[in-house]
């Protein structure tokens, strides 16, 4: 589970020395403290403190506005990425758990979208819908969504992953038409595609973000009114520290040490509050559990470690009295324009 998240370099963590190459365990163990600095950040030109939850401090000490082309990855790293990039689609390989997470994610997304839009067509239940897959990696989630009939745009800052994804989907004529990939940032996309998508999926991405506010704001921009936002991420609890950091990183070495920063985990309540402040209504939160013995995921009541969340962009303007009082970002200029 954790190593799969590694591979999702979405909005990167830009901590200088602690950020390790989030590829696979085998790579990291071979390469001592490999750095992948080809990730990028959502953080704009100033650092924002998140006041919503105590102790939720970002580790950014330096701001870098980078695009993929300005990556400082050295050629050796690029080659390793290239080597690893082919492993995305080895179903029994290092990304096996990410593939098996599809058993939960895809029905979750599909059923919630079907509830809202109804079955479009037999055999292609989600035909006609547009979905944005943020941090798509090798396209592990984009492809099943494409097979269900949606038009998927997968974005990822890592060009090699995007290339792998494109290559993999190029063989299948069905997917070729429906699934597109782009190596870019969410902000860049938000400028072009305002209100263009029925749903945004950010799976195993939020725990790597530098700036959740900007992420939420961009999601809000690209979604149509009434559109859905699907997030899967890790909770910030003692249990997630024990299992996600200590067990997975240090004891069992499922992920290289330092990949996850417990400070960046976010609890469902905090995430819910954050999203509500950006004009979302959180419709469902469900806990997920990974069984390392069987390699299978299952739903559970408890959201202590992993959870999935479904939020909907509010259609109408929220009442000023209700929402704005909770939001603590009143100093942001031009905020009102977000609620269009």
């Amino acid at each position, binding site marked *: 589970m954790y190593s799969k998240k590694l591979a999702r370099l979405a909005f990167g963590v830009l901590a200088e020395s602690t950020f390790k190459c989030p590829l696979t365990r085998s790579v990291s163990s071979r390469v001592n403290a490999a750095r992948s600095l080809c990730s990028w950040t959502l953080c704009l030109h100033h650092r924002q403190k998140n006041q919503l939850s105590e102790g939720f401090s970002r580790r950014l000490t330096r701001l870098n506005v980078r695009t993929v082309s300005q990556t400082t990855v050295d050629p050796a790293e690029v080659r390793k990425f290239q080597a690893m990039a082919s492993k995305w689609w080895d179903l029994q390989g290092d990304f096996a758990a990410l593939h098996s997470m599809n058993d939960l994610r895809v029905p979750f997304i599909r059923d919630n979208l079907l509830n809202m839009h109804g079955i479009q*067509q037999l055999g292609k*239940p989600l035909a006609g819908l547009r979905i944005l897959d943020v941090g798509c990696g090798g396209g592990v989630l984009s492809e099943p969504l494409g097979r269900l009939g949606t038009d998927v745009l997968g974005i990822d800052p890592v060009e090699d992953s995007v290339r792998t994804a494109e290559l993999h989907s190029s063989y299948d004529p069905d997917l070729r038409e429906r699934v597109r990939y782009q190596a870019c940032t969410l902000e860049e996309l938000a400028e072009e595609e305002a209100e263009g998508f029925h749903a945004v999926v950010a799976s195993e991405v939020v725990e790597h973000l530098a700036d959740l506010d900007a992420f939420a704001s961009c999601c809000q921009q690209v979604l149509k009114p009434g559109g859905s936002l699907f997030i899967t991420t890790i909770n910030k609890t003692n249990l997630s520290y024990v299992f996600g950091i200590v067990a997975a990183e240090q004891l069992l070495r499922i992920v290289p040490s330092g990949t996850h920063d417990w400070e960046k985990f976010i609890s469902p309540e905090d995430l819910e509050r954050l999203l509500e402040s950006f004009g979302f209504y959180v419709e469902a939160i469900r806990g997920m559990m990974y069984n390392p013995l069987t390699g299978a995921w299952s739903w559970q009541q408890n959201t202590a470690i992993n959870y999935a969340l479904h939020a909907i962009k509010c259609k109408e303007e929220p009442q000023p009295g209700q929402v704005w009082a909770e939001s603590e970002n009143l100093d942001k200029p031009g905020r009102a324009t977000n609620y269009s």
Partner: protein
Amino acid sequence: MFTFAKARLAVLGTGRRCVALRAFSGALRGVASSESNEESSTSENQLFDVIISGGGMVGTAMACSLGLDPNLAGKKILLLEAGHKKEMDRVPETYSTRVSSISPGSATLLSGTDLCSFCNVLSVWDACSDALITFDKENLQDEMAYIVENDVIVAALTKQLQTLSDHVKVQYRTKVVKYTWPRPYHVSESIPWVQVTLANGKTLHTKLLIGADGPNSMVRREAGIPTVKWNYDQSAVVAVLHLSEPTENNVAWQRFLPTGPIAMLPLSDTESSLVWSTSHQHAEELLQLDEESFVDAINSAFWSNENHSELVETAGSLFRTALSVLMPDSGSARQLPPSVAGIGPKSRVMFPLGMGHATEYIRHRVAIIGDAAHRVHPLAGQGANLGFGDVAYLTKVLSQAAFNGKDLGAMQHLLEFETERQRHNLPMMAAVDLMKRLYSTNAAPVVLLRTFGLQATNALPPLKEQIMAYASK
């Protein structure tokens, strides 16, 4: 169990009470006569979602089943068959020799409940003793099994396929010469699909190959799937029998001779189908006999008591008495099998028997079903039913996978299919093989053992119900 929505076997012909089939609305339209259904649009490298290799009963049923599934709507499915298209505008007046007994579970898969040739009772007994077991349902309204000619099944399914021709294509007279397997995970520059090379030089690609090509399956061989198999030293002789007098023919009879079981399956009031498994040499002799001698041989096989020994008879009757004291209500009244007057005009045929089981039913992007995966002795009439069970479960698994947006050839759901079907098939096959071996001998201890066993089983209705339930799935 997946049910064909509104599938009906076509009603064709008249005056045949036995195979009452109802037309699928519109099925009779476009029963085209063109022999080859060559796709005019088949380009050199057309990619299909599913290719089914082998258009027998199980292969054609698989194609129909996939074509009718709502979650697989829009998927491109192709059926490849080396033989001719089996069309029947009318059910022929005479029965053909190959028939199958279709369990109610398979019948649900295949059609509505319009098959009239049913058998209500299955009566099995030992030639070496008087032990008899009768499987019957309390309420004789329910059928235990349907006896249907294989050709009729295939023709009806073919007709059904024609209504699905927008996404299910069939190519007849098509022989496959080579399969090329994909790598387990795709490497750039290699094609990730299964490549099927035909005799006419074309190459087709598919995301999932289903092998339904019979006991000598090329798919299984080329995939390198190890198979556990052995030949029984037996061949089965099949023929159509005319009974000496019309009777309410709803009992299937099977007698275990030391050379092998002889079975009579009802087709109509006056006709039954014969399946006589015996040694190769005896089978050849039977084929050479003239009609009268053949009929005599059949009758004596059913009626004669030459294999009884004193010891076994005494022991058997003692046991029966004991049972009747313990369980006075058990056992139904003993019926007698009908006697045979003649045989049908189509010639008798024989085919060798064997047992086979593939150790794996699946590989990456490949699945095998039907006789390609498992082959049994016909003594229990289960061969076709196991195949139809495979069809139903594989359709269910693929349907769910498609609804989850999965790649149809992915191992995860194929493994689920394999596990479930092996769990069901293996006990059945083991039981059939055991029965065959148990009844192949004349030795007194074994005969005594099976005599007691059979009588005891006959006296225990719950046990019989369990057996019937398992066989009916």
